[in-house]
């Protein structure tokens, strides 16, 4: 048990961050982290020293998170109002927003948008890989990503308006 707890101590902070980014909220992130570590301990002897260990752990965690929302992601309907709205230019250069607030924006995204945004933008997955992971077409992946970006821009804009 000590080896397992050691492993948990080393990687839990990093993997919990992954969970927070991929999940709807804090509670879901905790659940996902828990499930991920149980999978990791079960599969630990499947790790064959190919690639970095941390990368392997991260992949398991991402997979667990994707699994969690796989069924609900397809059903969720997105606000159509957004699509008609033209988003105004935002000056990102001098923009400083607290990490927690950015994280909150991501978490508020519809499940599938959040996953695609995370996978593509934050974890450098290609649309091809995403399409395989989520069982969708590459086109869907691309259009969902642009919608996710649109929503995020909107949220940043609103946030700026309230703080100014």
């Amino acid at each position, binding site marked *: 048990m000590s080896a397992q707890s050691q492993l948990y101590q080393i990687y839990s*902070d990093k993997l919990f*961050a992954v969970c927070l980014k991929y999940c709807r909220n804090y509670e879901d992130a905790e659940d996902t982290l*828990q499930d991920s570590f149980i999978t990791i301990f079960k599969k630990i002897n499947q790790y064959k020293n190919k690639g970095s260990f941390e990368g392997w752990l991260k992949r398991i965690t991402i997979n667990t998170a994707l699994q969690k929302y796989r069924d609900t992601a397809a059903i969720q309907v997105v606000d159509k109002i957004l699509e008609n709205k033209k988003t105004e230019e935002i000056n990102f250069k001098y923009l400083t927003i607290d990490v927690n607030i950015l994280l909150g924006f991501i978490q508020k995204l519809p499940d599938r948008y959040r996953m695609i*945004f995370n996978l593509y933008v934050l974890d450098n997955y290609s649309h091809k890989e995403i399409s395989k992971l989520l069982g969708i077409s590459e086109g869907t992946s691309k259009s969902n990503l642009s919608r996710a970006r649109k929503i995020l821009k909107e949220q940043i804009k609103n946030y700026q308006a309230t703080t100014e």
Partner: protein
Amino acid sequence: MNNNLDKLFQENLKNLEATPNKRVWNNIETKLKKKKNRLVPLWWFATGAAALFILGLLVFPISNNDKFIDKNDSNIITETPETELKPKQIKSLSKDSIQKKSILVAEENKILKSNKQEKKTLNKKEEKKKLVSTKNAMKKIFLANNSIKNDVAPALKKEETSLTKKNTDKPITSKEITAKVTLKKETKKIDINSVLEQKDSISFNKKTISKWSIAPVFAVLSSNSFSNSSPIDKGLSNSTIGKNSISYGVQVSFKLNKKWTIQSGVHLQEMSYVNNNVIAVSTISTQSSSISFNSNSSVTFANAATNQNSDIVSTSLNRSNLSGDLTQKYGYIEIPLEIKYNFLSSRKFNTQIVAGFSSLFLNKNEVNLNSQFVSRFGKATNLNNINFSGNLGFDFGYSLNKNWSLNLTPMFKAQLNTFSENSNGFSPFNIGIYSGIKYQF
């Protein structure tokens, strides 16, 4: 534009780390402990099944041995001194090893251990021998009138050689066994992991898969034989008809992985055969009879319908005789050990091939002669107390919901060791349709 947005998130969230609440680890810890506990019954089950099998094998040769040995005592005498010598040799061996103590401490310990084991096994063997000899004495009384068989001598020689071989093999094998045992202890842990892996590859898609299942089972059996002869009397050939009987019990199975399942359980099984229209003739000699009636008289039987044995029929006119239906019933406590392979499954339906064997422990033995006026009860003397059967069948399952499913299993079970002697080539099998409601957990 997009790049700016992406950059904002990338730069801010790249090195994000967050410490989760302590309860997450507590949950993981308890879940891991649970998993370990849950795996223990698998080993219990496996060792239990293995123990049963070995027990069956141990008892089975003994019951065969005393049949041979009790007819020729001189051979036993030559046998026993050999085995008595063995422990002495071993004792001297262990003394030697003690002398070497100062030189080789670590190795010597191993040898001592293995010697102790040998002694134990040998002592056990001796005890068994004693048991056998007491059994022999008892058997002698019962079988005093039995004629000596011609094939006794060669069979005995074989027995002897195999016994001495066993003895000479022992020192090596027992060491190997101890080595294996220690090895196994190490590999067990790995095995658990590999089992978990296999389970995991499935559970990645479906979060929980139930592994254990228990089912009360009921079956209608049709008793049959590969030959038409009768195990009771030669004269009754071609008239033995198998009857329908029932079997019921509990089945426990454990899913090893997606494809393979092992199962065991306890069943009560009954078989029944009938010879209609039989003439029973009282005889003086006990030689040919393999049943004993409660009234202590011996009888031979003949087929009234075919009249093949005309001499018996003709003599039957002179002596007192009975005519009626002869029914033989015998029942077993069945402990199967079967493996199932999943070869066709959809969401609701599941088809598996079942193969394995059963240990059968005799718990019912009846022979009943029903004539117009009187009925006589007795029992067969040639039934073995322990019997085995080879099983083969198909299992059709229909799942009602996550936990419950209905099962229908046509099974073919051929018995291997039903009769100890004089069965007139009668080898029984049964075809049964087992049905049950399975609960998975």
